[in-house]
């Protein structure tokens, strides 16, 4: 039964795709590359901000189980709030901070992406730091390794595998967040930024919905995500699995 439904869906999808590419592309399709690029830059920015604060915090939490006893539960509660639920607060903050609609839309788009991405990095990195075997930490201590040398020789390399796992998940969440982050329908007029999420949103909110553009946008996203996974994360992960794996 399940397989039958699955087959039906796949076949219908294929037929749809073939029809899509047999007919001339809609004029809006020319916006796709630019939209993809600006969505990507926005996610990259959010990712960079997330890295900048999660790496030091994860290092501190992972190395000070006692000191971080009260911090971790707070972070866990914060992480359990979906970024979509924070949307009004984030938009409100962005409006307050920039005082004009255009920049506010940009800022809130990056912030929503950040709030979707950062927790995956943080909790993966904490696990990575906690996973450093005791004997390695003791060796580092007994040879007097600290400060920059400790970060360079012990902490950062030990974080690499969990950084990659966290990054893959974080980027997945980031692409997901685009749908809500680039178009704010509850304000009038709805502010927006250019991006795949925005294209998808207006295609969906059109009456009737613009099925061709919905399909094309999603396809574009799939291609980018697959390319990143295949060409970036997979090779990095395979290398890291050999070089940075600690034997316990």
């Amino acid at each position, binding site marked *: 039964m399940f397989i039958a439904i699955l087959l039906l869906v796949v076949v219908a999808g294929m037929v749809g795709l073939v029809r899509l590419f047999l007919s001339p592309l809609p004029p809006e399709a020319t916006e796709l590359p630019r939209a993809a690029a600006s969505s990507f830059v926005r996610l990259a920015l959010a990712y960079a901000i997330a890295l900048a604060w999660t790496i030091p915090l994860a290092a501190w939490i992972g190395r000070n189980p006692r000191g971080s006893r009260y911090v971790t539960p707070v972070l866990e509660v914060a992480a359990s709030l979906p970024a979509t639920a924070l949307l009004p607060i984030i938009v409100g903050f962005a409006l307050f901070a920039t005082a004009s609609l255009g920049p506010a839309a940009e800022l809130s788009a990056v912030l929503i992406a950040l709030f979707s991405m950062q927790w995956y990095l943080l909790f993966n990195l904490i696990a990575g730091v906690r996973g450093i075997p005791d*004997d390695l930490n*003791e*060796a580092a*201590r007994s040879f*007097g390794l600290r400060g920059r*040398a400790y970060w360079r020789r012990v902490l950062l*390399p030990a974080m690499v595998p969990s950084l990659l796992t966290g990054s893959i998940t974080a980027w997945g969440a980031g692409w997901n967040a685009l749908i809500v982050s680039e178009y704010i329908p509850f304000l009038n007029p709805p502010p927006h930024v250019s991006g795949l999420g925005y294209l998808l949103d207006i295609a969906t909110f059109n009456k009737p919905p613009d099925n061709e553009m919905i399909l094309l946008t999603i396809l574009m996203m799939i291609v980018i995500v697959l390319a990143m996974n295949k060409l970036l994360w997979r090779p990095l992960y395979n290398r890291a699995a050999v070089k*940075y*794996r600690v034997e316990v």
Partner: protein
Amino acid sequence: MEAPLLEVTDVTKSYFENGKEFKVLDLIRFELAERDFVCVVGPSGCGKSTLLRIIVGLEPPTSGQVLFEGSPIRADNPQVAMVFQSFALFPWLTVAQNVELGLEAQGIPPEDRRTRARKFIDAVGLTGFENAFPRELSGGMKQRVGLARALAIEPLLLCMDEPFSSLDPLTAQNLRDEILQLWANPDLPPKAVLMVTHSIEEAVYLADRVIVLSSRPGRMVAELEIDLPRPRNRKEPEFYGWVDEIYSLIV
């Protein structure tokens, strides 16, 4: 009489769980002078590894104190080096980078680091493996890296925690002989060796002095001078005499 290099004075260690005290070590007291090769033996669970960790400053004693050259020991003391049972090599660093670790921590410039690391990599017989990663080495070779890393900081005191326990018997015996060869060379560090082992034979084979601990809590049962000439022969009756004596002290 020379001033002792290391003074362990009435070291006691207890762990507390749900308000209950578990005593692991009880009033351990001994000294180490230059040119001492001392082994601590005891049944498993007698706290001998804990004792070594306290001596190198990785763990504080519950009471008592450890003095190194007259002052309280600190974990990062560059005159004391540690060899770990698990090797504790960093998998992402090459042999040379692992060996240079202590020198890097001391802020020694890269050129000098390389030369000094090179010298000890050669001394432990790993010439040509400088750029290999630990995962590419056998257990015995890994422990040679651990040894070279400890020797590279040219410590006065070398501490070894069951360094041969995770090696096969043949490799372990080769490494023991090599340790003795290095030890016999007065130009090479260290000035004293303190080693923890559960193997009585190993202790009698290597040490000038054997400290025997009882099990739980670890108490000092005896401190014996092994006056056999080196190289020692395990088949000689004198050798077996010592092994039997220590064995009877533990059981």
